[in-house]
């Protein structure tokens, strides 16, 4: 099993519903977020291109945050999801430094927090909160090893890219272009 997410940058309108849904579902403290929107504008008028991306933890296959954690609080669970055990985290910040995507933040309670791919919802057979609420259906989630999963089907028919592949972390967010 290998959970992954595909984000259709042509369909995303940047409404931030995924951000709010995540904050609500996961009780993210005020002023913080586990997923966010990036609006990338390139070129100069009238030749302007815009790309909107819903970003979150990439749940990398080769995750530097798990490797650098001195206590083992950062770990990988089934499906390749990178998680943090709160009462093992000492808040040293090493994993925050190690992430090329700046996907982790220091929770006001002290431990480090991040996207969990809503593993508590997956256990109940539901999809992630961000995917469920997306009004344009631009987020696809599922098991990459299952050819019939939403994410596998989305990746089969479209061109895609990952962010900063040169960082060597083998990220698992795929941006359909």
């Amino acid at each position: 099993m290998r959970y992954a997410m595909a984000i259709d940058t042509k369909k995303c309108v940047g409404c931030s519903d995924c951000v709010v849904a995540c904050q609500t579902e996961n009780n993210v403290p005020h002023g913080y977020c586990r997923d966010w929107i990036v609006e990338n504008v390139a070129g100069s008028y009238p030749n302007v291109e815009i790309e909107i991306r819903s970003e979150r933890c990439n749940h990398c296959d080769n995750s530097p945050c798990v490797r650098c954690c001195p206590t083992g609080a950062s770990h990988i669970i089934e499906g390749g999801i990178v998680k943090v055990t709160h009462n093992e985290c000492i808040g040293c910040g090493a994993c925050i430094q190690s992430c090329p995507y700046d996907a982790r933040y220091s929770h006001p309670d002290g431990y480090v927090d991040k996207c969990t791919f809503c593993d508590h919802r997956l256990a109940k057979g539901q999809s992630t909160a961000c995917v469920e609420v997306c009004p344009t259906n631009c987020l696809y989630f599922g098991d990459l090893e299952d050819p019939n999963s939403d994410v596998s089907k989305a990746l089969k028919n479209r061109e895609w890219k990952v962010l900063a592949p040169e960082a060597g972390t083998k990220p698992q967010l795929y941006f359909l272009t």
Partner: protein
Amino acid sequence: MKEELFISGRNIPNIDPYLNIWHWQIPIYLYLGGLAAGIMFFAGYFTIMRKEKDMETAVKWAPFLVPAALVLGLFALFLDLKHQLYFWRLYTTIRLESPMSWGAWTLMFVTPLSMVWVASYMKELFPKWDWKFDILNKAEALAIKYRKSMAWAMMLLAVVLGVYTGILLSAFNARPLWNTSVLGILFLTSGLSTGLAATMWMSKSKYERKVLSRLDLIMIGIELFLIIHMLMGFLAASEVQIEAAHLFLGGEFTVVFWVFVIILGLVFPAVLEILELKGHHVPVWIPALLILIGGLVFRFVMVEAGQITRFLY
């Protein structure tokens, strides 16, 4: 024109717009760790070379600074932790892939070792000293008997500690300025140099100061070479590292790096030490203090600047 905007209102403290997770505590800790490593290394070295008599400060007096530096450094590190009550989790596991785990365990051995070393010289340096308890006297006798083994262990652990202060940073590939293997050996050299400077300052013997100052000149030479080596490596690497190097070559850290680290922290004290060796009278505290400050500024610059550099996408 190319610009990138966050429109979700993401503005997480200490992460946006650029990372600033590690503050003054980390450079202080790295500096004190390097300083302690430097003093310990040469205390061990001169003991093994049987120079205890000639190099009394390096072997017997300067090591008093080591436990103090390590305890202060560890306290700074503790202040940096955001989930402080769980710090003991460091010692419930050994994680070979994590430099911080290596560091935590190294300090676990180095700190007591440095204390035993100091304790083994207490009676010799302070004849009126009394351990009060018989068991402590026996422990002292044991420590004195195994001083040479301790010296070897101190040299070895000092190298691990010194290199670790650099690897702690260089292991992060997400921060291009830190992601260079030169950093481990560079921080070790800088630590050895600051250790020598502190010892030199404490020493009252002319002969000892001369030996230490010669060694320090070698360290400064190596350090300058490694810094140039590091910058050349960056300029020959990928875009993110070229940009990282430009923080020191025209960017916002240029002045503080070249003035306080290179000129006042390395070149000027080296010139003063050469003048002193040539027979001119230079008060020893001037080059020593400059080297100590230069090393501290260097740690601050590297930690601060490194957090600004990142992958672009």
